[in-house]
């Protein structure tokens, strides 16, 4: 379970303090599929960074189960991400000089697995995403859709319980978008928690709950308040 408690993130810009994100209470239950929607600059990425243990809040606590993640040292937060989280990026963020196989191996390498295990697991996953014949291709040698599938394989390779996705369908054609959303559906069915930041209404509609961010403040998405909002789960 992910829980935000009185979390505020301020930025100082030219002597002026700007509230980038503010949330009194938010609970995301294990196995939930949550879409975060909102206009550009509304704080979606800040929220994702806070949930991922990558951006210390100015105030408040971010809990992962019983652990206040920002009370952990940086190295432990890295370990937490490595063991329990997977990230999907809008621009895939594949390492350009590594092959598809090597890119997928990264999380396993960071977990300290043996090279043989890394290779076996990465190849298996890429095969499942239909990239068995592209293992040794560099990202520049792959189509956009193939790159996103490599990125998805990298996200899932360490079997994360939480997937944090930043505009995962933003750069994709409809067919590739379906592949990604199907993969998220499958991950959701497997009981993984998914938090997806998106502008895409089609992608948001696949989530079990949508939240809207406006000027850094969180609320239930338009028209979904009754269906999704629960005082226990959301108070923003």
């Amino acid at each position, binding site marked *: 379970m992910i829980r935000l408690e009185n979390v505020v993130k301020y930025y100082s810009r030219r002597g002026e303090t700007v509230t980038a994100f503010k949330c009194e209470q938010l609970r995301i239950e294990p196995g939930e599929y949550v879409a975060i929607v909102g206009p550009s600059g509304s704080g979606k990425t800040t929220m994702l*960074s806070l949930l991922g243990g990558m951006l210390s809040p100015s105030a408040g606590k971010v809990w992962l189960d019983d652990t206040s993640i920002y009370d952990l040292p940086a190295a432990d937060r*890295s370990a937490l*991400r490595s063991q329990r989280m997977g*990230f999907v990026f809008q621009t895939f963020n594949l390492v350009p000089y590594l092959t598809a196989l090597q890119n997928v191996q990264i999380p396993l390498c960071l977990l300290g697995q043996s090279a043989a295990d890394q290779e076996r697991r990465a190849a298996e996953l890429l095969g499942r995403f239909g990239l068995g014949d592209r293992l040794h291709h560099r990202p520049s040698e792959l189509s956009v859709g193939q790159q996103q599938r490599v990125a998805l394989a990298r996200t899932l390779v360490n079997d994360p319980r939480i997937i944090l996705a930043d505009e995962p369908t933003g750069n994709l054609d409809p067919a590739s978008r379906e592949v990604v959303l199907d993969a998220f559906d499958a991950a959701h069915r497997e009981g993984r928690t998914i938090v997806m930041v998106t502008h895409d209404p089609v992608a948001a509609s696949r989530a079990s709950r949508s939240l809207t961010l406006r000027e850094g403040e969180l609320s239930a998405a338009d028209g979904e308040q009754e269906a999704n909002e629960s005082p226990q789960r959301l108070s923003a």
Partner: protein
Amino acid sequence: MIWQELRSRPWAVLSNSLAILLGVAALVAIRHITVHSEQEVSQQLAQLGANILVLPQEATLQDYYAADQNGGTIPEEHVSEIYLAGLTGVEQVSARLNVPANLGGHDVTFTGILPQSELEAQTSWQTTTLFTAPKDHEGCTKAKLSTANLESPESLVTHRAIQNLKANELVLGADVAERAAFSAGDTVELLGRSFTILGVLPATGTVDDSRVFAHLHTVQDASGSGPVCNAIEVIGCCEDAAGDLVPKLRKLLPSTKVVTISQVVQTQVGVNRLMANTSWFVLVVLVVVGGVSLAGAIAANVRERRREIGTLMALGATPRFVQRLFLGKALILGLTAGTLGCVIGLVTAILAGPSWAGVTVFVLPATSFIAVLMATALAIVSAWWPARHAAALDPCLCFQEV
């Protein structure tokens, strides 16, 4: 990951480490030539020992072995005067006269020397007892040259003198013999006279290799120079004796220039000192230019890989892992540049040593190892701050657009 990144940008790798590579190459080359040149000088000093040169007043000195090729002459009778003076510590006296000649189609230096047997004969009928009872200076402990074997032609190399040399005999320097394909026992024509080759000297790496040695009087007759020589070598029993002999010889032969071997090799010592100082300068350049250049390159690399670093951190890389990524890269760059630079420096020193400094250069393992180690350490130190900066980057950079 480090290898993959380096392999993907070979030109960047080369340019990043070029300053270190060139610095190490220059340092290794200079140090090797300097060390071998210093060894050569000390060997010369040890070999030539307490030699003193008596030269024409106008002679200038650059090279001990070529000191008798200054063109000016002094009377041969100075040799007898030195013996007859009965100076303490004189062990051996050798006069030399050089004339240009052609042997077997090759230009050579025809050098006249006075064999020791003849000197002994000259001095004995002039009633001196120098050779039968040489006068040692007080406290001299050095082995006496008078006991050395001067019978073999090779003694010209080792002791700068020969016991016997007939009027029609020649001793060839190594280069002359090799170029003209002559060997001991051959008969050759030189300056219209017929000579038998007594022997061939081993290579010395000096001008002696291109000389043809003959009896002094033969060279005087053939060249028509009269009873003169270009230089007289006086060999003392030890360094102390040489120091004492110089003022006495100057007093005895006021129209000549009297110098010790150490004064002659001073030029070479000066060159060595200059090269040693240059190597320190190169070291400073290596540290400053190489270090700054690599630090700048790694810093630029960190800047252009910010999103990659952020992504790695999002995937679970610790700051320490990120730091090690860049320090590892610096280690590989430093080691590669240091090793390549060392190899280039060694090849340069081995190829250029004989022509630049007249020395044969061999690999000095300790110097080479230290140079590679230093380059590696320099690379790591240079990359330390950029690597720390990379480790401190905000992982949220992974969300930034390209």
